[in-house]
């Protein structure tokens, strides 16, 4: 082998030294001809004839040189083609024999596919986040970062005053600041005013110019946008939201209402750029809500914005870094209380934000390692199955060897089967990968985002990943069987059909099976507990009464709401209250089970212990209409309007979390505050809310969600965009009547109202349940997949075990053991094989459940032990089922076949 490699290398060297070697040989050849010519002359030929004869004796000048070169260099194309042809023939033959073993092939391909999906998928998915957005000039582009120093960690976020100081320092770095936010964009459509939350980026006026991105249309922001005194409400449009119709060039110069303020569109960003950065709207940085008051503008303490810079052509990276750190050092001296440890530096821009890059790399490698482990387990299983197959085909392999196939030849053939299997597996994985986004899109009911389509577009690197994973995988699971069965024991194999043995089941495989069972059991236990959670939640009290409830979503016109706050809502409400058959009416900015998360963090006033709670703004009569039980105090009432005391009503679950050792009655009158980041709009940071009532628990946005709730008066926190009007019909009234009442009430004020938009309580309950079941199915499926993999592993090991012990079994049968007895021996062995795994798995599951049960939201009840028992039982039953077929095969061996070889 080494000699072959040496020869190939030596030939390869000759290819590269062709000219020198040709010259050498020319010289040698000429000398030889000269000597021959002299010899011929001595024989009496004249000089010309002597030379002619000499060349003839050599076999011609050019022919000899060609021959020499051919012998010297790599084998000509024909021989390469011959080798390729051999490989191709092996592949064809391997394909044919796999096609005959359909079940084996199917199982291998499916498991390989399952194992390969994440391994191939992760590098593909990471392309979503890599590389600069289209159109960005990266040369000289940098990100300003803060180095880790003193108590500070490395970061890429800056305060606004620091940004302004560095930008104006004139150190040869042009800087642009930016930050992502959500804003509310209202637009007039045929159906009235539509308000949606859009992904917005607040940027300095030079943002696009600095990145090198040309706007698709319009002049963009001018310098006045960077001046707080002259900044006007202007906007640059990105891509057109989820509809993906692309930016509309006709929008240039038109007006958009953002957060209730009209903005003039002064530019259209290129579609591909804004699509990749995921921004629908660009607004001037100076219009950011934080900069609208003095305290925000001069607050050096909070770091919330990012800075990109471009080096001017005469400034080098090191020089720029030095200049920047001089500026931050000056700021540190000037504002020691905030800036003492802040030291600026530069990182070249590569499309990634500095802080995300290392986290992303770590995450990616952890994920790759985990999924690689899964694939390795899959490979071990398939390796086991291939060995079973090899053991069963030992006779065929022996015949091939007996008629002259070399070991290398057999190994190559066995490997080519592995290559075919893994190629089919990766093809399956790719089919799955390509179909995940469309299926998800269909499930969620939204189109596929462009960046996903971009990441799925095939290119050289993704093809290389697929080919690499395929070949590596085939080598990992194919090499062991190939080496083992390319050396069959010819004589014993040719003599009998019964598998004489000589190959023992490897320890690696036994351990692998035990390990897989060990991994599968915790998954099974957790899945079992999830199922129990679904059951208990499905039957649990929602905390409000859905029957007889109807609601309608109203989109408000922000402009009108500014002029006459609440007028429209009040009018509709009064109309509805007058209708017959309506018991009560209320309004809220969300409904229970509406899937819209309005989670904020709250704490008792003066304490830093924040708890997550679901916040709903409601009108008076909310508790009555929803039939939510009031435990103490009062609900939100008419007197809670603007100017009066800020009040709130909380659920018992939240009261327990916030004031654990306080009786419910004493919670009334205590004060509550929101975390600063969560309550930017409307209220200033110090504001607190008096608790005036405590309700019984009721569900939040989804059935499975925690039941910590905060209710705030709608009148004190007016909504500009969307509210729900909720009504309860009198007992016994048909729901059709309720719907009709709604239509009449709204139609008087809103001509575009569509009757179909009335939601009934029953519908809410049903959709919510369906969605919860879907989610539970998703969480339970990993357990099933792991168990299926483990079953395959068991099948492989047991099959090999049985195939190699056939003769022993035949002897037992011959000595009078019944087939049932043999079968039970094998099954007992299987149980012995999986028992350590079951025990280990149960211990791990116990640990996980005990440690993480709060995070996982698991109920700890009598079901816990049942879940362990069921998981262990399922694992053992699956193991026994997986081994039944090979065990049955062993028990049905005719003794004479097995004994003949002795």
């Amino acid at each position: 082998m080494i000699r072959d490699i040496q020869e190939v290398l030596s030939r390869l060297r000759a290819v590269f030294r062709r000219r020198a070697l040709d010259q050498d040989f020319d010289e040698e050849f000429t000398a030889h001809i000269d000597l021959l010519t002299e010899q011929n002359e001595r024989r009496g030929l004249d000089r010309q004839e002597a030379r002619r004869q000499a060349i003839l004796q050599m076999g011609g000048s050019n022919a000899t040189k060609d021959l020499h070169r051919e012998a010297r260099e790599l084998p000509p194309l024909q021989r390469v083609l011959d080798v390729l042809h051999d490989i191709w023939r092996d592949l064809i033959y391997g394909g044919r024999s796999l096609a005959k073993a359909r079940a084996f092939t199917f199982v291998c391909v499916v498991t390989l596919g399952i194992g390969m999906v994440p391994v191939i998928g992760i590098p593909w998915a990471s392309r979503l986040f890599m590389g600069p957005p289209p159109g960005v000039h990266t040369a000289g582009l940098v990100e300003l970062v803060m180095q880790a120093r003193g108590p500070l960690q490395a970061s890429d976020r800056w305060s606004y005053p620091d940004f302004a100081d560095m930008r104006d320092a004139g150190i040869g770095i042009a800087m642009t600041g930016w930050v992502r936010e959500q804003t509310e964009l209202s637009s007039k459509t045929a159906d009235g005013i539509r308000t949606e939350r859009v992904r917005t980026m607040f940027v300095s006026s030079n943002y696009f110019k600095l990145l090198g991105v040309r706007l698709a249309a319009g002049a963009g922001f001018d310098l006045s946008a960077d001046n707080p005194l002259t900044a006007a409400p202007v906007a640059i449009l990105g891509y057109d939201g989820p509809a993906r119709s692309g930016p509309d060039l006709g929008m240039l110069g038109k007006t958009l209402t953002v957060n209730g303020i009209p903005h003039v569109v002064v530019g259209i960003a290129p579609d591909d750029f804004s699509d990749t950065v995921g921004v629908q709207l660009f607004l001037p940085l100076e219009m950011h809500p934080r900069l609208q008051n003095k305290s925000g503008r001069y607050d050096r303490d909070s770091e919330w914005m990012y800075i990109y810079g471009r080096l001017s052509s005469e400034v080098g990276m090191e020089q720029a870094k030095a200049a920047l750190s001089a500026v931050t050092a000056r700021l540190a001296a000037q504002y020691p209380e905030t800036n003492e440890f802040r030291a600026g530096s530069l990182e070249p821009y590569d499309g990634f934000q500095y802080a995300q890059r290392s986290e992303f790399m770590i995450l990616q490698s952890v994920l790759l390692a985990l999924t690689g482990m899964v694939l390795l387990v899959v490979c071990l299983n398939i390796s086991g199955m291939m060995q079973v197959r090899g053991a069963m085909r030992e006779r065929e392999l022996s015949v091939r060897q007996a008629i002259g196939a070399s070991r290398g030849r057999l190994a190559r053939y066995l490997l080519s089967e592995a290559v075919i299997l893994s190629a089919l597996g990766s093809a399956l994985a790719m089919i799955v990968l390509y179909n995940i986004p469309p299926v998800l899109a269909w499930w969620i009911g939204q189109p596929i985002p462009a960046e996903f389509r971009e990441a799925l577009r095939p290119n050289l690197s993704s093809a290389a990943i697929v080919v690499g994973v395929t070949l590596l995988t085939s080598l990992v699971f194919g090499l062991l069987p190939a080496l083992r069965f390319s050396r069959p024991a010819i004589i014993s194999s040719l003599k009998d059909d019964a598998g004489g043995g000589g190959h023992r089941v490897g320890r690696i495989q036994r351990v692998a099976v035990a390990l897989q069972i060990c991994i599968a059991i915790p998954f099974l236990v957790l899945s079992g507990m999830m199922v129990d959670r679904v059951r208990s939640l499905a039957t649990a009290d929602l905390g409000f009464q859905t029957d007889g409830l109807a609601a309608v979503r109203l989109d408000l016109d922000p402009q009108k709401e500014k002029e006459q706050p609440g007028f429209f809502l009040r009018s509709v409400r009064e109309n509805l209250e007058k209708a017959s058959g309506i018991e009560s009416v209320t309004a809220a900015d969300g409904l229970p089970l509406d899937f819209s998360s309005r989670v904020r963090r709250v704490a008792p006033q003066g304490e830093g212990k924040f708890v997550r709670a679901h916040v709903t703004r409601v009108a008076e009569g909310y508790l009555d209409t929803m039939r939510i039980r009031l435990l103490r105090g009062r609900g939100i009432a008419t007197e809670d309007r603007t100017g009066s005391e800020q009040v709130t009503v909380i659920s018992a679950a939240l009261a327990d979390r916030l004031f654990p050792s306080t009786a419910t009655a004493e919670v009334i009158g205590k004060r509550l505050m929101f975390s600063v980041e969560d309550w930017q709009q409307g209220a200033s940071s110090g504001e607190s809310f008096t608790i005036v009532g405590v309700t019984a628990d009721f569900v939040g946005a989804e059935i499975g969600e925690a039941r910590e709730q905060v209710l705030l008066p709608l009148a004190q926190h007016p909504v500009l965009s969307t509210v729900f009007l909720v009504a309860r019909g009198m007992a016994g009234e048909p729901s059709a009547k309720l719907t009709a009442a709604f239509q009449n009430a709204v139609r008087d004020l809103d001509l575009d109202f569509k009757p179909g938009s009335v939601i009934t309580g029953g519908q809410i309950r049903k959709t919510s349940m369906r969605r919860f079941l879907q989610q539970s199915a998703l969480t339970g499926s990993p357990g099933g997949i792991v168990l299926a993999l483990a079953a395959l592993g068991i099948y492989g090991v047991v099959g090999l075990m049985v195939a190699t012990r056939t003769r022993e079994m035949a002897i037992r049968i011959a000595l009078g053991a019944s087939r049932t007895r043999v079968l039970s021996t094998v099954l007992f062995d299987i149980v012995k094989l999986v028992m350590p795994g079951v025990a280990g798995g149960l211990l791990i599951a116990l640990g996980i459940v005990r440690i993480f049960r709060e995070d996982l939201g698991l109920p700890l009840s009598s079901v816990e032990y049942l879940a362990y028992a069921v998981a262990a039982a399922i694992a053992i039953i699956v193991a026994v089922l997986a081994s039944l077929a090979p065990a049955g095969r062993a028990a049905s061996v005719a003794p004479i076949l097995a004994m003949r070889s002795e």
Partner: protein
Amino acid sequence: MAGEKLDLLKGTLDLLVLQILSSMGPVHGYGLARRLEQVSGDELAMNEGTIYTSLVRLQHRRLIKTAWGTSENNRRAKYYSLTRAGEKALAAEAANWVRLTSVIGRVLATSQGETSQ
């Protein structure tokens, strides 16, 4: 058949070259050709150029090594000599050849015996 020259069997030229190098020590291509002509009694039908392809093959397999030197007529010439691996290979190949020819000889003898019976 007499008078016609013999074609060399495939692979045997390498063996002959190794043997000549072993007996003569370092020698150049022309010398090899002459020696081969001499010991074979001019009975082999072969272009002298093919000796060089054989030399290249042996070189690739590290059985011989080369060095530039000066020939008897004061010209620059490439001298070939055996390596240690070459000596081993020659011993193995020669033994193999002797066995092969004796087997073939025996087989031919019996079949001639059968036909003569």
